[in-house]
């Protein structure tokens, strides 16, 4: 288990430092790895996703590009097909509309359409998430969009330990990987993180295999399945619920493609009650996928289910409305209580 391994290490890193450490290691080991994006060199990434990389590797390998997502993300596809291992950053996931053709018609499909004769070993990193009132074009989470379209592996770390291990794996993977980091977890000064994402991180490289969900808290009464920022909110809710004698198990998916249904089903076998929490839109999303998978495989074990997600409205700007639509700790508590007999 990832958590147990990390307990032996004292050094704690923020999630952004852990990500950068993995990228730097892979860049030192392999000249074919390079990073490309907007404001990633001198600025170090708006969310510190590349802090310090340009100083070590220079502009040739940490490339600032013009604001032209179609061109540079498509260029990453081309470089990957030529055998390099590019990492391309889409500054906010909300900007995917500018360049989605290169992502879902090229990056994600070329392996399949070539009958497996072409591989696209690239990583697409992107910032997700709200909770800082930046309105409809800068606050979306969109886990479901990328996981829905075939051909992309989709990674969502929630701690520094996981961020490093998943990044090593992402860069070494021969398929395109979408690595979605939540702004609120990065540990940047102007957007304080909750307690939790800053964890012990070993110096040496290690990988976390895709498709291995992590049971972040064991419990016997209710299974709470979530990812990203909401792992920490679910853990907080679980502590409060424990005071009332409700023992919630919290599962962090860590990757959406592949999805570790086995861990979820095992937990449902134990608890019989399922709550799925997602910061993405409710309809046709992660919550629906998890509930459907559980129903297909373990209908007889399921006593009750609840979904907690953003209702089907774009993210509003004003705080009272953003608070209304983004799930919080209280929403998770209420959903857990609702499935309790």
């Amino acid at each position, binding site marked *: 288990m990832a958590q147990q391994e990390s307990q032996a290490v004292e050094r704690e890193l923020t999630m952004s430092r852990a990500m950068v450490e993995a990228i730097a290691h892979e860049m030192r080991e392999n000249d074919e790895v390079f990073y490309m994006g907007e404001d990633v060199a*001198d600025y170090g990434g708006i969310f510190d996703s590349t802090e310090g990389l340009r100083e070590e590797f220079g502009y040739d390998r940490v490339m600032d590009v013009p*604001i032209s997502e179609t*061109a540079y993300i498509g260029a990453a596809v081309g470089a990957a097909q030529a055998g390099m291992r590019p990492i391309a950053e889409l500054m906010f996931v909300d900007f995917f509309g500018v360049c989605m053709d290169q992502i879902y018609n090229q990056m994600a499909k070329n392996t399949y359409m070539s009958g497996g004769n072409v591989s696209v070993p690239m990583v697409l990193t992107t910032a997700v998430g709200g909770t800082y*009132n930046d309105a409809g074009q800068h606050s979306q989470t969109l886990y479901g969009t990328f996981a829905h379209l075939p051909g992309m592996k989709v990674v969502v770390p929630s701690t520094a330990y996981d961020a490093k291990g998943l990044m090593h794996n992402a860069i070494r993977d021969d398929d395109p990987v979408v690595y979605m980091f939540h702004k609120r977890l990065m540990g940047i000064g102007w957007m304080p993180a909750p307690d939790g994402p800053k964890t012990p991180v070993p110096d040496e490289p290690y990988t976390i295999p895709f498709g291995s969900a992590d049971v972040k808290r064991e419990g016997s009464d209710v299974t709470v399945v979530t990812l990203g920022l909401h792992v920490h909110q679910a853990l907080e809710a679980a502590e409060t619920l424990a005071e009332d004698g409700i023992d919630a198990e919290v599962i962090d998916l860590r990757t959406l493609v592949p999805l570790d249904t086995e861990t979820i089903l095992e937990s449902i076998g134990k608890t019989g009650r399922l709550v799925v929490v997602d910061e993405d839109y409710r*309809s046709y999303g992660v919550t629906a996928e998890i509930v459907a998978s559980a129903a297909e495989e373990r209908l007889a074990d399921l006593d*009750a289910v609840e979904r907690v997600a953003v209702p089907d*409205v774009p993210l509003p700007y*004003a705080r009272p409305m953003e608070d209304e639509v983004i799930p919080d700790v209280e929403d998770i508590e209420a959903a857990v209580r*609702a499935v309790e007999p």
Partner: protein
Amino acid sequence: MFEDMVTARYYEERLQEEYLEGKQPAFDISAGPIPGELHLAAGHEAAAAGVCRHLRDDDTVTAPHRPHHVAIAKGVDLKRMTAEIFGRQTGLSGGKGGHMHLFDPDVNFACSGIIAEGCPPAVGAGLAAKKRNEDSVAVAVLGEGAISQGAFLESLNLAAVQELPVVFVVEDNDWAISMPKDRITDVDDGSLRAGGFDMPGVRVDYDDATAVYDAAKDAIGRARAGNGPTLLEVQVHRRMGHFMGDPQSYRPDEDTEAAQERDSIERLADDLREAGVEDDDVEAIRERAHDRVDEVIEWAKDQPEPDPEAAHEDVFVNPPSGVTTDEPTHELAGSDD
């Protein structure tokens, strides 16, 4: 023109003060009375004022993520715009859009937080005017960082080939967040790009409101007369960071200092004095603008916050029946019970 510029500058100085309240000493983007990011346009005022002076309410303007100076020059309702920026119920969109997403259909103003994405809708407004045989025009305002985007280049081509009444106004402030202009383009004079689309291209080299006014008069006149689009690039300067809280460590101090020294407002004030306008009259304009801004900010701060439930409204103008709500279902699944 001078009043628009003074209003925009002072408005943003006041917004800056309000924005930083609650963010001192540690800058936390989610603290303080103004939500979200804030992108200020100090140093850009000449472009908006010189262009919008030629526009009517039925002309369309699409602005980028740095919209306040353009909105003010276009005549957007300043009170409701300010309430929107503070996230209040009486804001232009009831607090749903915020500072990067201001919509005022009364004066045909809109803006978008996605780079260059205001260009295609401006082309569409021009297309509508042409189809209806109306003489309104559309203006798309964007930064020089946006000129590499497909949406901009595709829009130039579509407007040109359809001979649409559109003026593309590029505000060249030399910086696309941390990227200096010379690292995003090998074409120093952006107006040369117009040649690739067989449309007129004009560059105003110094941020001189009068020169912008003259160049825009020609471009907008040409569009209104049915003679097609123009690309107008205006040199401005960025006195501030890309957004409030931007540490600007990528930017040489001398560049920031040079930007602070070049002040299009003082330049225009000098021009006015040279043209024989009395100092008292210049000061009276300034004072009137400041009073107006102070008044709208106080008004906006007194406005109520939106009802959280309002978040669920306005997804559709004509909401389908049975639309999904956020109500917990409490439904039991499975067959055991």
